[in-house]
Protein backbone atom coordinates (compact mmCIF):
# COMPACT_ATOMS: atom_id res chain seq x y z
CA UNK A 1 0.00 0.00 0.00
CA UNK A 2 2.67 2.46 1.14
CA UNK A 3 4.95 1.94 -1.87
CA UNK A 4 2.09 2.41 -4.32
CA UNK A 5 1.14 5.70 -2.68
CA UNK A 6 4.73 6.91 -2.69
CA UNK A 7 5.13 5.96 -6.33
CA UNK A 8 1.99 7.76 -7.50
CA UNK A 9 2.95 10.81 -5.47
CA UNK A 10 6.51 10.59 -6.74
CA UNK A 11 5.55 10.42 -10.41
CA UNK A 12 2.93 13.13 -10.39
CA UNK A 13 5.16 16.20 -10.33
CA UNK A 14 7.88 15.07 -12.77
CA UNK A 15 5.18 13.96 -15.23
CA UNK A 16 3.44 17.32 -14.98
CA UNK A 17 6.72 19.12 -15.66
CA UNK A 18 7.40 16.82 -18.61
CA UNK A 19 3.97 17.48 -20.16
CA UNK A 20 4.19 21.25 -19.69
CA UNK A 21 7.69 21.53 -21.12
CA UNK A 22 7.06 19.29 -24.12
CA UNK A 23 3.76 21.01 -25.03
CA UNK A 24 5.37 24.45 -24.73
CA UNK A 25 8.39 23.40 -26.80
CA UNK A 26 6.09 21.92 -29.43
CA UNK A 27 4.26 25.28 -29.58
CA UNK A 28 7.65 27.01 -30.04
CA UNK A 29 7.34 29.12 -26.89
CA UNK A 30 10.41 30.73 -25.26
CA UNK A 31 10.24 28.29 -22.33
CA UNK A 32 13.31 29.47 -20.48
CA UNK A 33 12.31 33.16 -20.60
CA UNK A 34 8.82 32.30 -19.37
CA UNK A 35 10.25 30.18 -16.59
CA UNK A 36 12.45 33.04 -15.40
CA UNK A 37 9.53 35.45 -15.57
CA UNK A 38 7.33 33.21 -13.43
CA UNK A 39 10.21 32.42 -11.11
CA UNK A 40 10.67 36.08 -10.32
CA UNK A 41 7.06 36.18 -9.14
CA UNK A 42 7.83 33.24 -6.89
CA UNK A 43 10.79 35.03 -5.41
CA UNK A 44 8.86 38.19 -4.61
CA UNK A 45 6.09 36.05 -3.16
CA UNK A 46 8.58 34.36 -0.84
CA UNK A 47 10.00 37.70 0.26
CA UNK A 48 6.59 39.20 0.98
CA UNK A 49 5.70 36.08 2.97
CA UNK A 50 8.72 36.41 5.25
CA UNK A 51 7.44 38.97 7.80
CA UNK A 52 4.13 37.11 8.19
CA UNK A 53 5.90 33.86 8.77
CA UNK A 54 8.57 35.28 11.08
CA UNK A 55 6.07 37.14 13.24
CA UNK A 56 3.79 34.18 13.70
CA UNK A 57 6.64 31.74 14.22
CA UNK A 58 8.06 33.88 17.03
CA UNK A 59 4.66 34.27 18.68
CA UNK A 60 3.87 30.56 18.48
CA UNK A 61 7.25 29.52 19.82
CA UNK A 62 6.91 31.93 22.77
CA UNK A 63 3.60 30.25 23.54
CA UNK A 64 5.07 26.79 23.17
CA UNK A 65 8.40 27.28 24.96
CA UNK A 66 6.77 28.88 28.00
CA UNK A 67 4.81 25.69 28.57
CA UNK A 68 1.47 27.43 28.06
CA UNK A 69 0.64 25.26 25.04
CA UNK A 70 1.19 22.05 26.99
CA UNK A 71 -1.02 23.36 29.78
CA UNK A 72 -3.76 24.23 27.30
CA UNK A 73 -3.59 20.88 25.54
CA UNK A 74 -3.64 19.12 28.93
CA UNK A 75 -6.98 20.80 29.60
CA UNK A 76 -8.45 19.44 26.37
CA UNK A 77 -6.83 16.01 26.75
CA UNK A 78 -9.85 14.00 28.01
CA UNK A 79 -12.03 15.19 25.14
CA UNK A 80 -9.30 14.59 22.55
CA UNK A 81 -8.49 11.05 23.67
CA UNK A 82 -12.18 10.31 23.55
CA UNK A 83 -12.30 11.51 19.94
CA UNK A 84 -8.95 9.87 18.99
CA UNK A 85 -7.48 13.22 17.96
CA UNK A 86 -3.75 13.71 18.52
CA UNK A 87 -3.59 16.77 20.76
CA UNK A 88 -0.47 18.19 19.05
CA UNK A 89 -2.60 19.07 16.04
CA UNK A 90 -5.08 21.32 17.90
CA UNK A 91 -3.27 24.66 17.47
CA UNK A 92 -3.10 24.03 13.72
CA UNK A 93 -6.76 23.04 13.48
CA UNK A 94 -7.78 26.21 15.32
CA UNK A 95 -5.61 28.51 13.20
CA UNK A 96 -6.12 27.05 9.71
CA UNK A 97 -9.45 28.80 8.96
CA UNK A 98 -8.20 32.16 10.28
CA UNK A 99 -4.79 32.75 8.75
CA UNK A 100 -2.99 30.84 6.01
CA UNK A 101 0.46 32.14 6.86
CA UNK A 102 -0.02 31.55 10.57
CA UNK A 103 -1.11 28.00 9.86
CA UNK A 104 1.94 27.53 7.66
CA UNK A 105 4.17 28.66 10.52
CA UNK A 106 2.48 26.23 12.92
CA UNK A 107 2.77 23.37 10.42
CA UNK A 108 6.47 24.05 10.04
CA UNK A 109 6.86 24.09 13.81
CA UNK A 110 5.10 20.70 14.05
CA UNK A 111 7.27 19.22 11.28
CA UNK A 112 10.38 20.42 13.07
CA UNK A 113 9.32 19.18 16.51
CA UNK A 114 7.88 15.78 15.57
CA UNK A 115 9.62 15.15 12.24
CA UNK A 116 7.96 15.25 8.82
CA UNK A 117 7.66 11.44 8.64
CA UNK A 118 5.93 11.05 12.01
CA UNK A 119 2.17 10.61 12.28
CA UNK A 120 1.73 14.18 13.50
CA UNK A 121 3.98 15.46 10.71
CA UNK A 122 2.01 13.66 8.01
CA UNK A 123 -1.29 14.73 9.51
CA UNK A 124 -0.20 18.37 9.71
CA UNK A 125 1.02 18.24 6.10
CA UNK A 126 -2.29 16.82 4.90
CA UNK A 127 -4.38 19.27 6.90
CA UNK A 128 -2.35 22.21 5.65
CA UNK A 129 -2.99 21.13 2.07
CA UNK A 130 -6.60 20.04 2.27
CA UNK A 131 -8.30 23.02 3.91
CA UNK A 132 -8.11 26.74 3.22
CA UNK A 133 -8.31 30.09 4.97
CA UNK A 134 -12.07 30.50 5.22
CA UNK A 135 -12.11 33.91 6.94
CA UNK A 136 -9.63 35.44 4.52
CA UNK A 137 -11.40 34.20 1.40
CA UNK A 138 -14.83 35.25 2.60
CA UNK A 139 -13.58 38.68 3.68
CA UNK A 140 -11.84 39.60 0.43
CA UNK A 141 -14.33 37.99 -1.95
CA UNK A 142 -17.43 39.50 -0.37
CA UNK A 143 -15.62 42.74 0.46
CA UNK A 144 -14.53 43.27 -3.13
CA UNK A 145 -18.07 43.32 -4.49
CA UNK A 146 -19.73 45.03 -1.54
CA UNK A 147 -21.89 42.18 -0.28
CA UNK A 148 -23.10 43.01 3.24
CA UNK A 149 -25.43 40.08 3.84
CA UNK A 150 -23.29 36.97 3.65
CA UNK A 151 -26.10 34.50 4.19
CA UNK A 152 -24.91 31.08 5.25
CA UNK A 153 -21.45 31.45 3.68
CA UNK A 154 -19.43 31.62 6.90
CA UNK A 155 -21.43 28.91 8.63
CA UNK A 156 -21.14 26.50 5.70
CA UNK A 157 -17.46 27.39 5.21
CA UNK A 158 -16.53 26.64 8.81
CA UNK A 159 -18.56 23.42 8.85
CA UNK A 160 -16.68 22.35 5.73
CA UNK A 161 -13.39 23.13 7.49
CA UNK A 162 -14.38 20.94 10.41
CA UNK A 163 -15.19 18.09 8.03
CA UNK A 164 -11.90 18.67 6.22
CA UNK A 165 -9.96 18.32 9.46
CA UNK A 166 -11.85 15.18 10.46
CA UNK A 167 -11.35 13.56 7.04
CA UNK A 168 -7.63 14.42 7.14
CA UNK A 169 -7.31 12.62 10.48
CA UNK A 170 -9.22 9.56 9.23
CA UNK A 171 -7.35 9.31 5.93
CA UNK A 172 -3.89 9.73 7.41
CA UNK A 173 -4.78 7.09 10.02
CA UNK A 174 -5.85 4.68 7.29
CA UNK A 175 -2.98 5.33 4.84
CA UNK A 176 -0.12 5.62 7.29
CA UNK A 177 -1.70 4.16 10.44
Amino acid at each position, binding site marked *: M*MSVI*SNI*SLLFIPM*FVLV*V*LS*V*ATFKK*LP*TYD*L*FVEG*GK*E*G*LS*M*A*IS*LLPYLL*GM*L*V*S*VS*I*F*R*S*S*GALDAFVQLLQPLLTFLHVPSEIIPLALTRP*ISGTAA*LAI*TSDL*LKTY*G*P*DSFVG*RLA*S*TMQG*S*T*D*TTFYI*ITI*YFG*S*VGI*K*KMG*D*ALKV*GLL*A*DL*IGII*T*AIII*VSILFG
Partner: protein
Amino acid sequence: MMVHLIWAGLACIGIIYGLFNGTIADVNEAIFSSAQEAIQLIIGLASVLVFWLGIMKIAEEANILKQLSRAFKPFIARLFPDIPKDHQVIGYITSNFIANLFGLGNAATPLGLKAMQGMKGLSENDEATRSMITFLVINTSSLTLIPTTVIALRMQYLSHSPTEIVLATLIATCLSTSAAILIDRLFYFKRVNKKR
Protein backbone atom coordinates in the same frame (compact mmCIF):
# COMPACT_ATOMS: atom_id res chain seq x y z
CA MET B 1 -9.04 41.30 13.18
CA MET B 2 -9.15 37.79 14.60
CA VAL B 3 -5.57 37.20 13.45
CA HIS B 4 -4.30 40.18 15.43
CA LEU B 5 -5.94 38.92 18.61
CA ILE B 6 -4.52 35.45 18.18
CA TRP B 7 -1.05 36.69 17.30
CA ALA B 8 -0.68 39.13 20.18
CA GLY B 9 -2.57 36.81 22.52
CA LEU B 10 -0.24 33.85 21.95
CA ALA B 11 2.83 35.98 22.67
CA CYS B 12 1.38 37.77 25.73
CA ILE B 13 -0.03 34.62 27.33
CA GLY B 14 3.26 32.84 26.67
CA ILE B 15 5.35 35.59 28.29
CA ILE B 16 3.06 35.89 31.32
CA TYR B 17 2.93 32.11 31.73
CA GLY B 18 6.72 32.00 31.44
CA LEU B 19 7.12 34.66 34.15
CA PHE B 20 5.06 32.67 36.63
CA ASN B 21 6.42 29.25 35.79
CA GLY B 22 10.13 30.02 35.61
CA THR B 23 10.39 29.31 31.90
CA ILE B 24 11.19 32.90 30.94
CA ALA B 25 14.76 31.97 29.94
CA ASP B 26 13.33 29.49 27.42
CA VAL B 27 10.98 32.17 26.14
CA ASN B 28 13.86 34.58 25.66
CA GLU B 29 15.83 32.01 23.71
CA ALA B 30 12.78 31.04 21.64
CA ILE B 31 12.30 34.61 20.39
CA PHE B 32 15.69 34.71 18.72
CA SER B 33 16.00 31.13 17.59
CA SER B 34 12.55 31.11 15.97
CA ALA B 35 13.22 34.36 14.10
CA GLN B 36 16.35 32.80 12.64
CA GLU B 37 14.44 29.67 11.81
CA ALA B 38 11.91 31.73 9.84
CA ILE B 39 14.66 33.05 7.57
CA GLN B 40 15.93 29.53 6.87
CA LEU B 41 12.39 28.43 6.21
CA ILE B 42 11.81 31.16 3.63
CA ILE B 43 14.97 30.25 1.75
CA GLY B 44 13.68 26.69 1.49
CA LEU B 45 10.23 27.87 0.40
CA ALA B 46 11.67 30.26 -2.17
CA SER B 47 13.39 27.42 -4.00
CA VAL B 48 10.12 25.60 -4.61
CA LEU B 49 8.07 28.73 -5.28
CA VAL B 50 10.50 29.97 -7.92
CA PHE B 51 10.56 26.63 -9.69
CA TRP B 52 6.82 25.99 -9.51
CA LEU B 53 5.65 29.44 -10.55
CA GLY B 54 8.19 29.32 -13.39
CA ILE B 55 6.69 26.07 -14.68
CA MET B 56 3.14 27.37 -14.23
CA LYS B 57 3.96 30.46 -16.26
CA ILE B 58 4.93 28.19 -19.15
CA ALA B 59 1.75 26.14 -18.68
CA GLU B 60 -0.30 29.33 -18.79
CA GLU B 61 1.35 30.60 -22.00
CA ALA B 62 1.02 27.19 -23.63
CA ASN B 63 -2.75 27.37 -23.00
CA ILE B 64 -2.65 24.21 -20.91
CA LEU B 65 -4.73 25.89 -18.20
CA LYS B 66 -7.30 27.05 -20.75
CA GLN B 67 -7.66 23.60 -22.25
CA LEU B 68 -8.17 22.05 -18.84
CA SER B 69 -10.82 24.64 -18.06
CA ARG B 70 -12.71 23.78 -21.26
CA ALA B 71 -12.82 20.14 -20.19
CA PHE B 72 -14.32 21.00 -16.83
CA LYS B 73 -16.91 23.49 -18.00
CA PRO B 74 -19.99 21.24 -18.32
CA PHE B 75 -19.43 19.90 -14.82
CA ILE B 76 -19.01 23.39 -13.36
CA ALA B 77 -22.20 24.62 -15.03
CA ARG B 78 -24.14 21.92 -13.15
CA LEU B 79 -22.85 23.15 -9.81
CA PHE B 80 -24.26 26.62 -10.46
CA PRO B 81 -27.77 26.08 -11.78
CA ASP B 82 -28.84 29.73 -11.46
CA ILE B 83 -26.11 31.05 -13.79
CA PRO B 84 -26.99 30.99 -17.51
CA LYS B 85 -25.01 28.18 -19.19
CA ASP B 86 -22.97 30.22 -21.63
CA HIS B 87 -22.43 33.17 -19.33
CA GLN B 88 -18.88 34.47 -19.03
CA VAL B 89 -18.96 33.95 -15.26
CA ILE B 90 -18.77 30.18 -15.72
CA GLY B 91 -15.41 30.69 -17.45
CA TYR B 92 -14.05 32.75 -14.55
CA ILE B 93 -15.27 30.27 -11.99
CA THR B 94 -13.66 27.40 -13.90
CA SER B 95 -10.31 29.16 -14.25
CA ASN B 96 -10.38 30.05 -10.57
CA PHE B 97 -10.88 26.39 -9.67
CA ILE B 98 -8.14 25.29 -12.06
CA ALA B 99 -5.68 27.84 -10.70
CA ASN B 100 -6.50 26.61 -7.19
CA LEU B 101 -5.97 23.01 -8.23
CA PHE B 102 -2.42 23.82 -9.26
CA GLY B 103 -1.65 25.75 -6.12
CA LEU B 104 -1.61 29.14 -7.86
CA GLY B 105 -3.17 31.15 -5.05
CA ASN B 106 -2.05 34.44 -6.58
CA ALA B 107 -3.60 33.66 -9.94
CA ALA B 108 -6.74 32.23 -8.37
CA THR B 109 -7.62 35.31 -6.32
CA PRO B 110 -7.96 37.82 -9.20
CA LEU B 111 -10.00 35.27 -11.19
CA GLY B 112 -12.19 34.63 -8.18
CA LEU B 113 -12.82 38.33 -7.72
CA LYS B 114 -13.83 38.60 -11.37
CA ALA B 115 -16.23 35.70 -10.90
CA MET B 116 -17.76 37.41 -7.86
CA GLN B 117 -18.25 40.62 -9.83
CA GLY B 118 -19.99 38.69 -12.58
CA MET B 119 -22.30 36.96 -10.10
CA LYS B 120 -23.11 40.28 -8.47
CA GLY B 121 -24.04 41.66 -11.90
CA LEU B 122 -26.57 38.84 -12.20
CA SER B 123 -28.33 39.67 -8.94
CA GLU B 124 -28.01 43.44 -8.43
CA ASN B 125 -28.54 43.68 -4.69
CA ASP B 126 -26.19 43.45 -1.72
CA GLU B 127 -27.24 40.01 -0.59
CA ALA B 128 -25.13 36.92 -1.20
CA THR B 129 -26.70 34.81 -3.94
CA ARG B 130 -26.92 31.04 -4.02
CA SER B 131 -24.05 30.69 -6.50
CA MET B 132 -21.85 33.10 -4.56
CA ILE B 133 -22.17 30.95 -1.46
CA THR B 134 -21.51 27.75 -3.42
CA PHE B 135 -18.48 29.35 -5.05
CA LEU B 136 -17.02 30.58 -1.77
CA VAL B 137 -17.63 27.35 0.07
CA ILE B 138 -15.82 25.37 -2.62
CA ASN B 139 -12.96 27.85 -2.43
CA THR B 140 -12.71 27.70 1.35
CA SER B 141 -12.66 23.91 1.39
CA SER B 142 -9.47 24.10 -0.72
CA LEU B 143 -8.93 22.48 -4.08
CA THR B 144 -5.24 21.68 -3.91
CA LEU B 145 -3.97 19.02 -6.29
CA ILE B 146 -0.28 19.45 -5.51
CA PRO B 147 0.46 21.06 -2.13
CA THR B 148 3.77 22.62 -3.18
CA THR B 149 4.39 24.67 -0.05
CA VAL B 150 3.85 21.66 2.18
CA ILE B 151 6.22 19.58 0.06
CA ALA B 152 8.81 22.34 0.35
CA LEU B 153 8.42 22.40 4.13
CA ARG B 154 8.81 18.63 4.35
CA MET B 155 11.99 18.82 2.29
CA GLN B 156 13.26 21.53 4.58
CA TYR B 157 12.91 19.21 7.56
CA LEU B 158 14.60 16.32 5.75
CA SER B 159 11.63 14.06 5.14
CA HIS B 160 12.53 10.69 3.60
CA SER B 161 9.64 11.08 1.21
CA PRO B 162 8.45 14.70 0.97
CA THR B 163 5.77 13.90 -1.61
CA GLU B 164 4.20 10.90 0.14
CA ILE B 165 1.36 13.09 1.45
CA VAL B 166 0.18 14.12 -2.04
CA LEU B 167 -2.31 11.28 -2.34
CA ALA B 168 -3.59 11.72 1.22
CA THR B 169 -4.10 15.42 0.55
CA LEU B 170 -5.89 14.65 -2.70
CA ILE B 171 -8.33 12.24 -1.06
CA ALA B 172 -8.94 14.58 1.89
CA THR B 173 -9.53 17.49 -0.47
CA CYS B 174 -12.00 15.52 -2.61
CA LEU B 175 -13.95 14.39 0.43
CA SER B 176 -14.00 17.78 2.15
CA THR B 177 -15.02 19.57 -1.05
CA SER B 178 -17.83 17.08 -1.70
CA ALA B 179 -18.96 17.53 1.87
CA ALA B 180 -18.85 21.30 1.43
CA ILE B 181 -21.03 21.11 -1.69
CA LEU B 182 -23.46 18.81 0.11
CA ILE B 183 -23.72 21.06 3.16
CA ASP B 184 -24.18 24.04 0.88
CA ARG B 185 -27.08 22.31 -0.89
CA LEU B 186 -28.67 21.35 2.45
CA PHE B 187 -28.52 24.92 3.69
CA TYR B 188 -29.92 26.14 0.38
CA PHE B 189 -32.97 23.89 0.57
CA LYS B 190 -33.46 24.88 4.20
CA ARG B 191 -33.52 28.54 3.13
CA VAL B 192 -35.98 27.83 0.32
CA ASN B 193 -38.31 25.94 2.64
CA LYS B 194 -38.22 28.75 5.17
CA LYS B 195 -39.30 31.32 2.60
CA ARG B 196 -42.37 29.34 1.58
